[in-house]
């Protein structure tokens, strides 16, 4: 399983030595450096196609694009900055969720809560999943799930919980 370290990522891009030997070390950093953070290609306009035609290489591509977007966010949006601890928490959970189930990974929309916190949103049809990582470490990160008028919240969630919510999002239930 590919593993990626999040430490020492303050420069805004991942470094080659942070990737394990199973992750095509030679190509990844250059690949990441070429990316922009707009990620329009990662958010195609037809959700059904986006979610159905999914392969592991596409998942890896999507995950790396997500990481780059988070790491580059503060360079793109000068008004709304992501706090370091919120960024690290979001990347750590996302990395763990991706490692557990790469075939279920989809890139979320990345935004802030206006105070340095990170908001990740996945949407499929009428189902929506939001993961919120506050900048203030005293506040709990949470998952918010919604389908129509039904909604629920899971506080202090783990990567395993996020994975199970990917299942919910992808299921036809």
């Amino acid at each position, binding site marked *: 399983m590919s593993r990626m370290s999040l430490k020492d990522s303050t420069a805004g891009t991942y470094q080659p030595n942070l990737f394990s030997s199973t992750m095509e070390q030679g190509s990844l950093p250059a690949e990441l450096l070429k990316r922009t953070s707009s990620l329009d290609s990662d*958010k195609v306009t037809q959700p059904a196609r986006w979610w159905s035609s999914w392969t592991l290489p596409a998942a890896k591509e999507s995950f790396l694009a997500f990481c780059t977007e988070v790491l580059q966010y503060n360079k793109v949006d000068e*008004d709304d900055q992501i706090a370091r601890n919120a960024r690290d928490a979001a990347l750590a959970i996302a990395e763990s969720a991706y490692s557990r189930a790469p075939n279920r990974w989809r890139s979320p*929309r990345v935004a802030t809560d206006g*105070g340095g916190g990170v908001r990740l*949103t996945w949407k499929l049809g009428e189902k929506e999943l939001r993961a*919120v990582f506050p900048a203030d470490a005293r*506040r709990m990160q*949470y998952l918010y799930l919604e389908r129509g008028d039904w909604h629920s919240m899971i506080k202090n969630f783990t990567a395993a919980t996020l994975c199970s919510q990917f299942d919910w999002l992808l299921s036809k239930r």
Partner: protein
Amino acid sequence: MNERSPGTEPVECEEITYRALKKGWDKGEPIPSEAFMRRVREPEPEKAVSLSRRKYVTARECRLKLRRKFGTASLHVGRVRALSFGLDIAPDPLRDDRGAIIEPGHCLLINLPDPVTDSEGAEFAASQLVKIARYITPNQEEQEHRERGGSV
């Protein structure tokens, strides 16, 4: 004569308000939920969400007021008030140092749940507002701007 200054009059149910948007999902889902959430600040979240009254401001003017805004959503005031959260829209004209009104169209979406102490309520209220909001397309923005002779 006691005439109200422009922008201080109550916001009528028939009015339309605008909210400038950050980058949305895609062309089909352009309005993100955080557009209708109070921004988290220290020591406490902002009290309300800023809107612009259509009677004073075009969608384009609303969008261009702040940097890096990707679009505008409109909210019908009556529909906001009809939601079951006690939400309201109140006039809040901005003034200069001398107290003169410089932005009569500014108003506030108030009574939104606190995103820190009532995160679930804040998320759900934002979702309900997204459902009743309407995205202003570039063509609609252009048309309105032309018809009203906007200043931007």
